[in-house]
């Protein structure tokens, strides 16, 4: 992967070397390159925008602290995915937050009141439908086991290949297939009533 800064393309290898030397702009470049990806993965797992921002910051700071130990066995992206997944799952495992995660009212999605943002679609019906869709997505995802949801999120949101998912989580390729299969099977069960409604 590469990004242009100061009219120059910087590849991951060079970025890592510069990070290990403590270059400030290299750190800034890494943040800029990966911030949205990390937020998206964290949000897919936690479904909490505020917490996902905190997780994103923690991930970058952890990378900054430990970049000296990075041996390059995996790509920088894979390393970041791994840290993000671990931090997101750790967040979920904390009891108090787990309680909130499982029991927060279905009227709110990420701790915010269920007020629809300003939209180009003025129709209240459409906005209600959007809110319903969001709730359905959140509820369905929350019903998936952690492991299956993590694999599903990496596949569907980030579009990672089976191999990349295996590297990021540290599991075998067959386990990725199996978890993805079970996630989709469970989703089909959850979505079944909705499919029947639509008929």
């Amino acid at each position, binding site marked *: 992967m590469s990004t242009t800064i100061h009219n120059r393309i910087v590849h991951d290898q060079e970025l890592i070397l510069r990070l290990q030397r*403590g270059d400030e702009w290299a750190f800034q470049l890494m943040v800029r390159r990966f911030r949205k990806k990390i*937020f998206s993965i964290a949000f897919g797992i936690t479904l909490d925008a505020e917490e996902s921002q905190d997780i994103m910051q923690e991930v970058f700071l952890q990378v900054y602290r430990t970049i000296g130990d990075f041996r390059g066995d995996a790509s920088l992206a894979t390393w970041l995915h791994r840290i993000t997944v671990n931090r997101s799952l750790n967040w979920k495992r904390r009891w108090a937050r787990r309680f909130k995660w499982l029991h927060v009212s279905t009227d709110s999605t990420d701790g915010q009141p269920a007020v629809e943002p300003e939209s180009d679609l003025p129709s209240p019906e459409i906005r209600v439908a959007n809110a319903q869709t969001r709730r359905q997505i959140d509820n369905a995802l929350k019903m998936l086991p952690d492991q299956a949801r993590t694999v599903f999120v990496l596949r569907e949101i980030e579009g990672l290949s*089976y191999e990349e998912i295996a590297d990021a989580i540290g599991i075998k390729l067959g386990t990725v297939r199996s978890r993805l299969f079970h996630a989709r099977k469970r989703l089909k069960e959850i979505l079944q009533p909705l499919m029947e409604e639509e008929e």
Partner: protein
Amino acid sequence: MTHPNADACDEIRLDRYLDGDLDAGEMAQMAAHIAECRQCRRQLAALTAFSQNLRDRVHDAANSVDFVALEKQVLNKALRQYRSRGGLSRFIASLKYTIPATVTAGLLLFFAYSNYVLKPPPVPSAIINSFTGSMSSVMIFETPETRQTILWYTEETDVESEPNAV
């Protein structure tokens, strides 16, 4: 590659079809099956729609985040970490010189204290039992604190007499 039950519903193959994890022959076979099978078509449509809605959901959430402000926060925190780490390393580096200097100063103080402060009370340096020879003008001094005895005399035998001190 052909599948033994190409016409039967196969959830695993449907899953792999979704991910494009089948070879070209299998993909074509699965596509033909889906065209004929209402159940698989519905499942495929539901999963595809769900994934698209999920991506839209994440995309909307990401759009509401002020990444520029977050980037500044992260950079500031990282710089604080760097400075605090730098301060600690400078402190550790300074110990390289401070510790030997402190040990040397401590040793000097120890010897000075034991030699000058804790010095045992002085005793006479010599006891004179007998005194022979021709002398005159004998004077005996004793220093007040160290109690050293000084004899001052004039020896008569020498042609050039000069004062000697002991």
